[in-house]
């Protein structure tokens, strides 16, 4: 060995850095021997499915579908990439300028800037101090902690419950009403059919398959959307779709899909297709109604016995009211559906048993209440509501709705609210004249225009002056509309806190970022089979929380400790105590009906199966006796005309369903001379909203030049000189994005699709990182909400209207900027 004298000098200094991080330590016996059964397959669940996991040296190695899941989604291949993502939030972090200047920080830096690592204690103390400041200076109207979303599955660790319960122990705050998925639908349908319908169990598939002769899929793509569910999915609906495919092939059931695009379901079933211009469904429905009415094909007895207000609707249909007769010829001009097809369709719907299955897309637009209401009117005129295989459903594409429910009681959850008698530290309910609850999609409006009064569902809402927001397991920088408006709003916020697993754009726009662990890193329980409630799943911890992440329960237990309310928060119980309690209560509720073993046995087995459910028909009880079993509408009947809504005197939601022109509409509608293309931003095929977009290896199975695909019509693309695989710039006056061209005959002229949930990653026009902070920046990956319109559906629901969106596109010829969506803060400079 060559002599190295300087080493002697080093030794002579006998210098070691005392108090530096201890990186290595002697191996403990526990780690050496390993936990018992560490190589077994363990069960867990997620929105993507229930599955089993095998580990290797404390790391998840293999993931395979749960035994009872016969139709698993290939999204299961993305699960490991969620857990072991390089963009995991590894430690609690605080934006440096916020750490230095608190609520007086430079908020224009928000979006991408310098963060520092802090300890959990420091982070949670800062969090509490910010809440103190907001409650002291502004009161509860200054804090919005109600913007919540698709938390990871699990009844105990549900992120929304933990965040809201813990923050409620500190003080009151603004909350939301409704959600982005079905905002218009869930507001209008209680007036019409007496319940939200969208989140209700529907007629069982076996009854539909046995009785329906015609199934209408209206803007509905169940084959795509049933891959994910609110609870652990087991994908039983796919068995019924397979049976339906057979029946279509054998000519036993006609399936007619009415849609502006050829859907995945159309391709799978090989069914009939009727193309309709985007956003014009109400005109088509009115023309069908007109055909039924003028040809005396409507079920007068059913209308008489089960509905109210048909006579107030007819003058509108016939044009007596507004001078426009809603004929097939009238509708053809708006919808591009040929008049004779409309006439045929009207006859088909009443020829035999017809089940209408509505999707959710068409209510996510301006006047989104109308197609849902009008579809209910059509179903009433057909007269089969309450019959097996007849009537209307608004949910058969969602969370196993239509799979017969087991009937078992589901487990409870960790409480979202304070226990009885508990009081917040800031026990102040003075919202200073502002509303304590605002429509879910109007929070950016509130931040930008505090004090403004709007109409919403028969009330006046006064926007609170929001200064601080808390997001937990929620990524509004995916699901809200119009990124550039959001940037302006976020500059006005004093403090933003985000709790998540990976660095979403929401985290990058925050001041305090806290790492939650994934479902794989904690113990929990969940229903499997979603709405079918087929059984109970043990969600077993596979690995210890990665890095410095913690479970939601642990995060907010520590937070409650800082508030001096730990015991109030946990009720003195551990994670295991809670699991046993939730399981025990479920067992008790099912006593004598569904056998459930003791908790320890359940945990060892991994699940308890509740068995098959009995087929059931929605609204059958109402049909049997509408007086004994009235609907939840004001009259107890189906309300074709709503006196209540009429009394609101809204110009954009009248007393009966109405066709109204949109602020933006393709195919000759307003704005189409400037931006001729309608952009459909429907739920993704390979993600749950934005969840799993960050899973890189899986993402690469569908991206084009690392960008989110944009699906283009062949003629439109050719006109613009675009080939399959090109990068395309999609733009309108609100924003611009890059996406990868996938040219497909499934998309008609004037229509493109970019799935929502594509992560936001802004860069400058020149591809620079610093340009990404500016309003008008280019999304480098392809987030469609860079382009969508942030307007309410109407004065009734004030719901998200993402589908009222026109764009244009061109081949992108400049130097391709890097994708910046999947990373932590980028330190773009001051």
């Amino acid at each position, binding site marked *: *060995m*060559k*002599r*190295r*004298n*300087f*080493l*002697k*000098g*080093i*030794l*002579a*200094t*006998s*210098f*070691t*850095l*005392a*108090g*530096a*991080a*201890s*990186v*290595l*330590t*002697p*191996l*403990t016996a526990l780690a*050496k021997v390993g936990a018992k059964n560490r190589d077994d397959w363990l069960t867990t669940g997620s929105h993507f499915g229930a599955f089993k996991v095998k580990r290797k*040296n404390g*790391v998840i190695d293999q993931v395979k579908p749960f035994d009872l899941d016969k139709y698993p989604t290939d999204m299961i291949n993305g699960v*490991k990439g969620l857990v*072991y*993502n*390089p*963009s*995991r939030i*590894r430690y609690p*972090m605080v934006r*440096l300028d916020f750490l*230095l200047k608190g609520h007086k920080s430079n908020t224009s830096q928000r979006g991408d800037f*310098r*963060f*520092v*690592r802090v300890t959990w204690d420091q982070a949670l103390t800062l969090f509490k101090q910010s809440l103190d400041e907001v409650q002291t200076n502004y009161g509860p109207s200054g804090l919005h902690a109600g913007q919540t979303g698709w938390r990871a599955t699990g009844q105990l660790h549900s992120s929304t419950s933990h965040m809201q319960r813990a923050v409620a122990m500190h003080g009151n705050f603004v909350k939301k009403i409704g959600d982005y998925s079905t905002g218009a639908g869930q507001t209008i349908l209680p007036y019409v059919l007496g319940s939200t319908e969208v989140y209700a169990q529907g007629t069982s598939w076996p009854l539909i398959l046995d009785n329906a002769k015609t199934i209408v899929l209206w803007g509905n793509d169940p084959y795509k959307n049933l891959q994910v569910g609110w609870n652990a999915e087991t994908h039983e609906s796919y068995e019924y779709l397979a049976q339906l495919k057979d029946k279509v092939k054998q000519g036993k059931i006609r399936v007619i899909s009415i849609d502006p695009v050829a859907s995945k379901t159309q391709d799978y079933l090989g069914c009939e297709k009727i193309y309709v211009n985007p956003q014009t469904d109400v005109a088509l429905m009115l023309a069908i109604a007109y055909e039924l009415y003028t040809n005396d094909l409507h079920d007068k007895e059913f209308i008489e016995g089960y509905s109210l207000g048909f006579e107030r609707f007819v003058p509108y249909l016939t044009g007596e009211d507004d001078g426009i007769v809603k004929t097939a010829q009238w509708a053809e001009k708006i919808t591009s559906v040929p008049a004779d097809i409309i006439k045929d369709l009207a006859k088909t719907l009443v020829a035999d048993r017809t089940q209408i299955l509505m999707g959710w897309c068409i209510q996510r637009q301006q006047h989104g209440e109308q197609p849902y209401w009008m579809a209910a009117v059509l179903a009433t005129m057909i007269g089969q509501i309450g019959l097996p295989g007849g009537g209307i459903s608004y949910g058969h594409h969602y969370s196993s709705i239509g799979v017969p429910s087991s009937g078992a009681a589901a487990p409870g959850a960790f409480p979202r609210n304070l226990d009885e008698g508990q009081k917040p530290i800031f026990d102040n309910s003075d919202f200073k004249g502002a509303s304590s609850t605002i429509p879910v999609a109007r929070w950016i409006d509130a931040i930008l225009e505090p004090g403004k009064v709007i109409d919403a569902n028969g009330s006046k809402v006064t926007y609170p002056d929001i200064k601080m927001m808390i997001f937990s397991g929620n990524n509004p920088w995916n699901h809200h509309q119009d990124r550039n408006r959001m940037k302006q709003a976020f500059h006005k916020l004093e403090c933003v806190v985000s709790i998540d697993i990976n*660095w979403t754009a929401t985290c990058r726009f925050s001041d305090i970022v806290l790492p939650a662990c994934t479902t794989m890193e904690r113990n929990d329980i969940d229903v499997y089979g979603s709405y079918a409630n087929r059984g109970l799943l043990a969600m077993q911890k596979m690995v210890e929380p*990665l*890095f*410095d992440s913690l479970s939601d329960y642990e995060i907010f237990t520590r937070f409650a400790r800082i508030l001096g309310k730990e015991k109030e928060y946990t009720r003195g119980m551990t994670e295991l105590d809670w699991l046993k309690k939730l399981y025990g209560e479920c067992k008790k509720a099912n006593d004598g009906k569904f056998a459930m073993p003791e908790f320890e046995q359940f945990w060892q087995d991994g699940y308890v199966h509740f068995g098959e459910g009995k087929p059931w028909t929605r609204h059958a009880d109402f049909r049997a006796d509408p007086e004994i079993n009235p609907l939840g509408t004001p009259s107890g009947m189906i309300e074709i005309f709503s006196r209540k809504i009429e009394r609101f005197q809204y110009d954009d939601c009248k007393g009966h369903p109405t066709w109204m022109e949109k602020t933006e509409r393709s195919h000759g509608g307003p704005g189409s001379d400037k931006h001729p293309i309608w952009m459909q931003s429907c739920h993704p095929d390979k993600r749950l909203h934005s969840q799993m977009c960050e899973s*890189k*290896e899986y993402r690469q199975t569908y991206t084009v030049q690392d960008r989110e695909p944009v699906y283009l019509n062949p003629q439109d693309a050719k006109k613009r000189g675009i080939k399959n695989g090109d990068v395309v710039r999609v733009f309108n006056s609100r924003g611009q994005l890059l996406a990868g061209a996938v040219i497909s005959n499934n998309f008609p002229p004037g229509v493109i699709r970019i799935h929502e949930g594509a992560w936001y990653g802004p860069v400058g026009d020149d591809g620079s*990182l610093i340009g990404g902070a500016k309003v008008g920046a280019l999304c480098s990956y392809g987030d469609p909400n860079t382009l969508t319109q942030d307007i309410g559906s109407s004065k009734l629901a004030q719901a998200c209207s993402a589908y009222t969106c026109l764009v244009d596109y061109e081949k992108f010829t400049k130097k391709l900027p*890097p994708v*910046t969506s*999947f*990373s*932590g*803060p*980028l*330190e773009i400079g001051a």
Partner: protein
Amino acid sequence: MSPSAELTREDVASENQGRAIVYNFLSSLFAKELNKDLVAQLTSGQGQDFLSSLALEPTLAASIDKMKTKLTKLNSDESLLELAADFCGLFLVDGRTSVSPYAGQYLNTELSGIEHAKKKSEKVQVFGEFHQQMTEFLNHSNVQVHSDFPEPGDHIAVILAYAAHLCLSASIENQLSFIETYLMTWIGKFTQQVSKHDHDFFYSAVAELTLKWLEIEVADLPKDS
């Protein structure tokens, strides 16, 4: 005649101790942000002597100088926080302006051996094959990653700390083989990235120091015996 014959067994032992100190020192700098206490130690007489001793080696002098310069400027909470933000942006997040501290992000273990450097865009999952390999090494040596340092086994601080451990416990051949295989295969790329993205110059100096140190090691340790 083998060059090591020039050194007595005691000489070798003390050289190894000295080398272990250097590895541990480098590991500490990558493990965690500098705080007031660590800066005080590094700017103390003993700390400065230590750095000066290292700077006696000509190829290390430039990096040590840069570090010393920066250390004298770390005299306020704000300057420490700025350096902590550099550390965070470089090593604690993933992004276009960060540098992965994980060996597995640079190397492809699925191909034959581990010599294939990844293309720039091919970042993979953390806690991958390289983490597994390091965990096995650590277990064989009866050590593990400390629970206060919740990072994968292929974090640069772990690999450097393990190199220190080997200095005191393994044959020179095994040490060299470990250094060549688990550090030299990616440290050049790592250092390049740090230089590119470091706002200031402290961590680029630390990375440069690490690279130069390893180069000396590979040059000076006997290839066979």
